[in-house]
């Protein structure tokens, strides 16, 4: 198993390198550069050339890539062209927001999605199961960004229970922070919960159908106890995988949700950096998100391997 873990760790190195290449060149392929954006209508050749020189944008693209890569490897993500702040610092200030949003959504998926999925599996083909099936389908079909707007309309504008946007850091009061995160987390969490619910349902059904569960039933164990005893353990792997995969789409989905609720997270940083052609910030942000995703999947894989050591690779 140790060998597998090592092998897996080594195998992500080329992937990470590949990601850095894709990120860098994708960002530089975006038409319109920093100088033209910054100068806007006040653009002149000389001013643009001066700006480009100041930020090393006049060097060859390959050189720029290696300079950047070298920086990343030594923990230096460079500076924002706009505010001159270190990219690492910017990310550092934005990550907690996105992290909180993502965690709340995952929490919702775990607390609501998994139990409902299991419940539906137990009551297969009966009312609760149909209800969960319909809810699950609705959940994966309703666009999160529309749901967000609807939640604002209902809970914020009409009922005035929650703010319609903006962010209050945790340091300024837990309650205020939770209030501003509730609607965004709900908007983002519904789809994930639905996915998790659907897959925990089908995972559990599979387990229930398996022979030993039937045997257990024959021995007179109650269905609930059976599910708790064998089912949960045996479906954990699948559910875990789904959760890992979903984290990626949560990171993506938060781009839109942060936009709707004016949250200063990583996603809105990326959008802002695209608009400003703030290359180093954009590169740093996208790289960060991609690497996060790879690492989460790695962890899921490794957990997989720990939970189920007899799986051979």
């Amino acid at each position: 198993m140790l060998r597998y873990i090592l092998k897996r760790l080594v195998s992500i190195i080329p992937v990470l390198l590949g990601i850095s290449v894709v990120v860098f060149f994708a960002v530089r392929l975006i038409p319109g550069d920093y100088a033209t954006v910054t100068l806007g209508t006040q653009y002149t050749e000389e001013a643009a050339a001066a700006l480009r020189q100041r930020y090393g944008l006049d060097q060859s693209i390959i050189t720029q890539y290696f300079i950047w890569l070298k920086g990343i490897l030594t923990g230096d993500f460079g500076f924002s062209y706009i505010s001159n702040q270190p990219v690492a610092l910017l990310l550092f200030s934005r990550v907690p927001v996105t992290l909180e949003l993502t965690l709340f959504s995952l929490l919702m998926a775990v607390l609501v999605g998994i139990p409902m999925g299991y419940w539906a599996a137990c009551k297969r083909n009966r009312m609760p199961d149909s209800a969960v099936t319909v809810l699950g389908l609705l959940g994966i079909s309703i666009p999160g960004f529309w749901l967000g707007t609807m939640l604002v309309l209902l809970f914020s504008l009409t009922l005035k229970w929650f703010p319609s946007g903006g962010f209050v850091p945790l340091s300024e009061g837990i309650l205020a922070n939770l209030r501003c995160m509730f609607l965004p987390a709900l908007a983002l969490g519904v789809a994930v919960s639905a996915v998790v619910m659907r897959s925990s349902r089908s995972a559990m059904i599979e387990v229930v159908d398996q022979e030993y569960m039937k045997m257990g039933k024959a021995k007179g164990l109650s269905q609930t106890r059976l599910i708790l005893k064998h089912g949960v353990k045996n479906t954990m792997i699948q559910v875990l995988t789904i959760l890992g995969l979903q984290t990626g789409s949560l990171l993506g989905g938060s781009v839109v949700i942060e936009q709707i609720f004016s949250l200063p997270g990583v996603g809105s940083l990326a959008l802002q950096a695209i608009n400003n052609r703030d290359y180093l910030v954009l590169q740093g942000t996208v790289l960060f998100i991609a690497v996060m995703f790879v690492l989460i999947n790695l962890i899921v894989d490794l957990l997989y391997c720990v939970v189920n050591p007899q799986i051979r690779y």
Partner: protein
Amino acid sequence: MKKRISLLSALILSAALVLSGCSDAPAEYGDSKGSGESDTSEAASSGVQDTSKETDGDQLIVAIQSDPSGLDPHMVTDKAAGICIENMYNTLFTYTEAYGEVAPSLAESYEVSEDELVYTLHLQEGVKFHSGNPMTSEDVKYSIERIMNGGARASQFDKVSSIETPDENTVVITLSSQYAPFLTYLANSLNAIVEKAVVEENGGSLANADAGSGPYKLEQWTEGSSLNLTAFPEYWEEGLPKVNSLVLKTIPDATARATALRNGEIHMIIDAIDQEIAVLKGAEGVTMESVPGTFWEYVGMNCESEYLKDVKVRQAVANAVDRDAINTAVKMGNAEVLKEANIPSTHEYYGGDEVYPARDLEKAKALLKEAGYGEGEITLKITVGSDWQYQVDAAQMVKQQLAEAGIESEISALESGVYFDGLNQGDFDLTICGWSGFVDADEYLYNLFTTGGAYNQQKYSNPAVDELLEQGRSTLDKEERMAIYKEAQKVIAEDAPMAFLYMNNFTVAMRDNVKGYTVHPTATTIFLKDVYFE
């Protein structure tokens, strides 16, 4: 993603004058109890050991629509940055409450030589920068030269031939020729006086530094969230600013802004957009104040493009555009339609010839025919910046209106970067864009309509206009100058390098207890220093 004012609308206006600071500022950011309405954020209660209870009197929270692009007064061109900067810095002269008028500020008094070429400025004594160092003539000289060498508004100073500093408190500026709008430009809040030593410490960039002498000093800038300023205790204007701390909070979404104001989470919205105005009308605890503004929008026509190089086609477009209909649909009828050029009827230098009194579809068709084009023979490309939804909306109406005159068009809404790129390189036929913050007639016309002018993306060129605008710059007699600009506006309107659309109102929405703020047409926020709570 709706930034309200274009980058374009750059040239933010107005100066950052100010008065003196009071006391220290506890400024634990976050508490913002409104006047007892529902839903105030609890914030700030935990963790703050300070026993002093914070009230509205300590902190003013103002919503801005986008993050500032940076804090370097001489480099930035966006509105949000302007609002932040003008509260941190001072200028030699400053706008006054009366639109178009300028009063001394850091320059306490001044003399002009007989030939109107030499300005001798006497600096206000006892002005300190936020670092604690006194402001000297050396800083003034350095600041102006910094603008002239690569600053975003360098062109406003291209007539300055030398700056001398005979002593610590005197600056002598010599111009190469007479220059009527000079003092107005010195009052532009972004042509600020910066502390030389701080600029040098920061390697030449003020993007996230504070080298000002303004009423507020930089405390913390959290990108994407807020810019926190605290009153500068040694501020030179007695008794100002009246509020201990100023928070400029970025809220890009209009609905979120309006809700936050109603809930008392913020105190002011600078430059409320039409949706907000509609929502906030009659809201409890909210006051709105509107004045005719300086943000004007236009349909720009590329005078070098295939069809639009023909003045008749341009005139056809200008006649086919239904300004009133666009105003109704896009601006909820709130804007003032421009019937001549870009100087509005509220401005002293307004021309008054209604070249385009109303839409004239027949005339448009006739002009096209004269130019030799039949129905559907012309297809134009309209580019707009996707960040500015109201301009994207206007483009769609223009498209429909042109189609009625027999001109086909396609719209592409581009991200601001690509958009400006195309605009600068002449890669467009039509565009919808806008500017704001202009004061002097020269500012309205010179850079936009002279041949090769700095902001002349339309590539418009008319030697007669060039001459008029040069004359306007160097004519000091007001009557004479007005006649020159009246003529220039008429010619420009007839040549139609732009179909001028409308001048927007400028609206500030405030909590009822916010008092003392002057809503200024240029949208300047220098008057925030006067604000107090009741």
